[in-house]
């Protein structure tokens, strides 16, 4: 896995031709949905569900060819998910709000006209799970709800036990939590050039290749983040773009 990732970076570097280079930098922000690729094993009435989050980043682009740039987007991104109990246990859940500091590095391939262009991004990323927050409701085993009559029926466990609501920082568990995540990304979008500014809209997908947990037990069910992002941004070009006739001499 490491060899493939290193190979991808190497390919990018080989393609980088400094004679054509120009720098752009800007800002981007997005809304995402994270799906935890895993399962709940044999747990009854329990599901993992996607949750939404957001990301903000500072894209930095280094243009190598008219059609190719190298881009890095140091960013803050949430990769959230929910553990939810269903049916009789409806109402019992935990939202896991996980924040990552992430560095995507990608090839940026453009096509189309002078001002309006399409682009594809393909690359890899490394991120660090910097903090977590958990909030939800669990049934409190010592807190019974008194029945109002002998014939009272129940549809939810939370009609029998009071729920306990919480919203607190997640305490990382050294034995379990793998806080470094590596993965690949693919994105596509359109950009519009206005003077030195390039505005863009992009859909991007992040696929973790590393388990969110350390390998700490036999028959462990792995957990991989899969993050679908829609984002907008703007890049500012620091150097004048050379004309094609100049670059061909």
């Amino acid at each position, binding site marked *: 896995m490491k060899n*493939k990732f290193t190979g991808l970076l190497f390919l990018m570097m080989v393609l980088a031709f400094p004679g054509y280079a120009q720098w752009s930098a800007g800002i981007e922000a997005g809304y995402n949905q994270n799906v935890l690729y895993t399962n709940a094993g*044999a747990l009854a009435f329990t599901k993992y569900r996607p949750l939404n989050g957001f990301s903000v980043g500072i894209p930095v682009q280094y243009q190598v060819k008219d059609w190719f740039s190298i881009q890095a987007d140091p960013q803050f991104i949430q990769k959230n998910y929910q553990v939810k109990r269903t049916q009789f246990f409806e109402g019992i859940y935990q939202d896991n709000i996980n924040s990552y500091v992430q560095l995507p590095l990608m090839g940026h391939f453009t096509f189309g006209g002078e001002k309006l262009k399409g682009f594809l991004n393909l690359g890899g990323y490394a991120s660090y799970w910097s903090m977590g927050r958990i909030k939800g409701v669990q049934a409190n*085993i*010592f807190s019974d709800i008194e029945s109002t009559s002998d014939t009272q029926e129940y549809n939810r466990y939370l009609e029998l036990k009071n729920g306990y609501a919480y919203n607190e920082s997640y305490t990382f568990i050294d034995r*379990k939590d793998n806080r470094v995540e590596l993965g690949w990304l*693919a994105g596509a979008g359109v950009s519009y050039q206005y003077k030195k500014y390039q505005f863009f809209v992009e859909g991007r997908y992040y696929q973790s290749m590393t388990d969110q947990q350390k390998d700490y037990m036999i*028959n462990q069910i792995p957990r991989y983040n899969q993050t679908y992002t829609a984002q907008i941004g703007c890049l500012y070009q620091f150097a004048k773009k050379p004309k094609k006739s100049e670059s061909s001499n």
Partner: protein
Amino acid sequence: MVMGLVSCQKELPDLEQPEQYIVGSFSEEFEAFWNGMNNNYVFWDVDPTDWDAVYTKYKPLFARLNINKDEDIRKAYTYYREMTANLVDSHYTLIPSNNALLDSATINPAYKRIQKRSDFHGFISEGYYYNNVFVNILGRNGLRTVDSTDGAYMVTGKTSTNVLYFHFNQFDLKNRSENGTLAERQLIQYFFNGINDNSVRSVVIDLRGNGGGNLADLNFLMGAFTDKSYSFGATRSKNGPGRLDYTPWIDASVTPKAGARAFTKPLIVITDQYSVSMAEITAMATKALPGGNGRVVGERTWGANGPLTSNVFYNGGQFSTALFNLVYTSSQMLRYKDGVVYEGVGFPPDVTVTLNVLQFQSGRDNQLERALTLANQ
């Protein structure tokens, strides 16, 4: 390349409830049991047992056994005993279903642990409370009941110095107060009336030999001693299939009964090494009384503090396999308000009084004497 990167991911193992395994060999039975424990046991973060090492060591041993041979079944039973010997869960009991094991004792690591205690002694018989305490200590000034169907008995009354005494061997008070016999209902009401009796100078609840029972009794009993909710610890349960997947700690509180007043007189709970589960939780709730008037006297408890209910409610705890009618284990972890998990250790008394067995055999109960001394102060 993308496909290559995706292939770096590990496969998701298929895990089933242990009850769903089709067991035609000991290899399958072992998998059902090992995975059942791996996913449902709630104490993995404090338990010293290396469950992966258990898998590595015992998987090939079970593979050599034939599930249709009685001698192999008995051999397997010794393996299970070894595998679970150091589990901290003191509720933990393996109850076999196979005919070849009918003459075998259930596997109960906690009892082995108790037997190693320096203050280990035998179980005080129920007749002692029912007869000796009722006659000699209470002077028949009270009530006593026994349920011949399940052996539940209760003794309450007042000493000559107006100490209200209550002993019962299982927590089923709320149920018996609503659905019990007339004598049981009267006895329970007698005790609760006594709490609010101005002439009563203190209360002694004798939880020696109490094996625990219904969690609903916590508020039913301790809720009579407080007019406001108070915390005595916290619980947590599993919220994922991983060994270390837990909910956060959830406040464990006593909720006052309707109309209850704050009890400001001494409340003394007597415990011994046979005070189990709800008896231990009640001792914790006594010690944590907001007024500081609760004291625990006697011996360190059995050490089974984790609340226990059906597996489905809190995604953990007891299950069964083809060989075991029940793998009896806690559904949640409990820690006292000092942050310590006393599972497998036992809740310590404020005033340690080890039963003097020789004196006891000659008619003196030094634990009850000490509790009454404190109650009379």
